[in-house]
């Protein structure tokens, strides 16, 4: 059963901090996440040729793991998390994923035994629930999908995650058409329904195997919006629309923790500060250290309340300073060292505010995700926490209000285009019903007709 959040974990926004959370999570080899210190989380991708066979893939991940662990010891880092985001072969053939987890964990155990370095292994299973043309969220692939979690959990993965895709077919259609109701329906309603289903099952797998059901991210939707929105000069999507999608995504990704996950949430969930304010779970985040994977407009701000600090992903190959995994994990570790020093000196809140303020006025997305405003979006969600639709709608409306206030203060500047897009979203939202059943039936009628690839059976409808 899922138990919905109807109150905030933190009494006030100012209580939120990096390296600390209400409900720390013990994982792996001596690590406790969110228990007073921040830890680097390294993510990597094998070179393309390495995917050819299971043996090649295992070998590649052994190299990656050894390189990263060795560098952590060389620079004296006290803790590290390694995240393996599955390439498709590892999830479609669950025993491959298991073999990789086992190989990595064996190396990590050696380092832990020899040096005492605290460490844990996250495996992020690929959401393979689709065939070429359609999502197949509940079909034949579901059992393979669950088996992939099972195999990883049995063979050494300490933290289980996925970047799930429920609602994506309606979202993809809507985001290119400024269709507010469709964005809300795709992320807030369909996405939440799928999250509740898969995370109940993933939490069972984790429990059975004594590992951690970590969490999800709305990468498939909110990050798609963020990427389409792009930099300041891109003209494919208003950044104000992207941040509304992000606020909606917070209610959706929260469903994992309602279904039994305990954190740490996934790095690319830029909605995670909102989620932390509600749930108190530890979160992973990425920003300036993930420029190897993508650009964003809030590289420092995202560090504000993180418990794990990540690089998103980097392909394994050589650089002047070592292999890529060594270079990036080292950067992450020094950032964590800075955060941890500020915690010891009693200066952490100052550092947090410096990080936040350096990006708060750069873009409406950063403005809303600044922890003080993120907290307010959290409050809007828990106000109707029991109802996935209403809480998503509340979050979206609160997001519009926050941006409006920022503009009124003179500190957040918008283009006319962003202003107009915001006004449109807001008007659309205000025009929507307060009756979730009606919203559901209206949307089913509309999107069954308009979105050729939308299949209601994916959601048990």
């Amino acid at each position, binding site marked *: 059963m899922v138990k919905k959040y109807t109150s905030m974990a933190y009494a006030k*926004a*100012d209580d939120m901090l990096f390296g600390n959370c209400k409900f720390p999570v013990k994982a792996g080899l001596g690590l406790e996440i969110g228990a007073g210190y921040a830890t680097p989380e390294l993510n990597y*991708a094998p070179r*393309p040729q390495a*995917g050819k066979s299971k043996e090649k893939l295992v070998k590649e991940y052994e190299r990656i793991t050894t390189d990263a662990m060795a560098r952590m010891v060389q620079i004296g880092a006290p803790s590290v998390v390694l995240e393996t985001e599955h*390439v*498709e072969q590892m999830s479609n053939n669950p025993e491959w994923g298991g073999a990789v987890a086992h190989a990595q964990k064996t190396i990590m155990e050696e380092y832990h035994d020899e040096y005492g370095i605290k460490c844990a292994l996250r495996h992020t299973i690929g959401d393979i629930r*689709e065939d*070429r*043309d359609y999502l197949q969220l509940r079909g034949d692939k579901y059992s393979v999908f669950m088996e992939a979690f099972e195999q990883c959990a049995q063979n050494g993965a300490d933290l289980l995650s996925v970047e799930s895709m429920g609602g994506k077919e309606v979202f*993809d259609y809507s*985001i*290119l*058409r*400024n269709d507010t109701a469709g964005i809300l329906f795709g992320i807030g309603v369909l996405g939440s329904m799928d999250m509740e289903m898969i995370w109940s099952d993933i939490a069972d797998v984790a429990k059975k195997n004594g590992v951690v059901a970590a969490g999800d991210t709305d990468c498939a939707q909110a990050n*798609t919006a963020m990427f*389409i929105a792009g930099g*300041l*000069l891109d*003209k*494919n*999507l*208003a950044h104000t629309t992207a941040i509304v999608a992000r606020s909606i995504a917070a209610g959706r990704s929260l469903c994992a923790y309602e279904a039994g996950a305990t954190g740490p949430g996934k790095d690319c969930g830029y909605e995670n500060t909102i989620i932390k304010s509600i749930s108190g779970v530890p979160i992973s985040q990425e920003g300036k250290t993930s420029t190897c994977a993508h650009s964003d407009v809030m590289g420092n701000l995202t560090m504000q309340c993180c418990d794990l600090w990540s690089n998103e992903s980097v*392909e394994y190959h050589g650089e002047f300073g070592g292999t890529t995994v060594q270079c990036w994990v080292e950067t992450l570790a020094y950032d964590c060292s800075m955060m941890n020093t500020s915690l010891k000196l009693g200066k952490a809140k*100052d550092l947090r*505010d*410096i990080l*936040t*303020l*350096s*990006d*708060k*006025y*750069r873009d409406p997305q950063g403005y809303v995700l600044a*922890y*003080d405003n993120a907290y307010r979006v959290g409050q809007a969600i828990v106000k109707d926490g029991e109802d996935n639709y209403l809480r998503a709608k509340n979050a979206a409306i609160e997001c519009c209000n926050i941006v409006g206030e920022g503009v009124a203060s*003179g*500190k957040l*500047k*918008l*283009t*006319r*285009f962003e202003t107009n*897009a915001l006004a449109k979203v807001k008007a659309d939202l205000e025009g929507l019903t307060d009756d979730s059943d009606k919203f559901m039936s209206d949307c089913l009628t509309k999107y069954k007709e308009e979105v050729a690839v939308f299949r209601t059976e994916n959601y048990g409808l």
Partner: protein
Amino acid sequence: MLDLKLEDIDGILVRYNVALEKEMTPDEAAEELYPKDEQIYPIAKAIYEGEEDDVIDGLKAAIDAGKDPIALINEALMTGMGVVSKLYDDGIIFLPNVMMSADAMLDGIEFCKTQTTEVPEPRGKIVCHVAEGDVHDIGKNIVAALLRASGYEVVDLGRDCPVDEVIEAVEKEKPLMVTGTALMTTTMYAFKEINDKLLEKGIKLPFACGGGAVNQDFVSQYDLGVYGEEASDAVKIANFIVGGGDDIEKLREEFHKH
């Protein structure tokens, strides 16, 4: 929490998009570009506004007034879309407007076809696909929509498209070019295979490639490859081929910017 003073923010970041914004509103800019013809104007405007019902109403009125349905495709629908494309290229309107206009225009074309037995002449056929093993299809969808909006007939092979399917489609459809989208370094190698198989069969046509993982250096490695960074480059490449031929070297000279 700490905060910055208003006057301090400029030294920390610059909102270049705000600083450089054009003076004219999109509606004003569009108004200057619409054709003045009494029958055509409302159709072009309805395209710009993305209102398919108004497009159909406008078409009905124009046909009643004696205009030829097939001629209206070019004179009204494509002209309206031309306004939209220009405003997008100039940075005055954004992609969702273009997508909605394109939907409205396609509805308009379908309507015109029902009003006559003549078959309209598309500007040319283009095969679009996402590389085998890759499901990232939003960029391809944008490419396909922009091409359709510019009057090209698009054969959309979808995502995760096997190499042989692309070859078959090229043999069957005889397009003026193929487009490929790949967002993963692991999937973009399929483009080379497509290139080799096409050449083996003696088929030589421009193969426009783009998408997050793809870069100019990679695309330059195979003979038919032409790299495009933005979705709108696909349209520009197609237009270049229609206007100036399909010489790959010339295309690269024009579109390889790095």
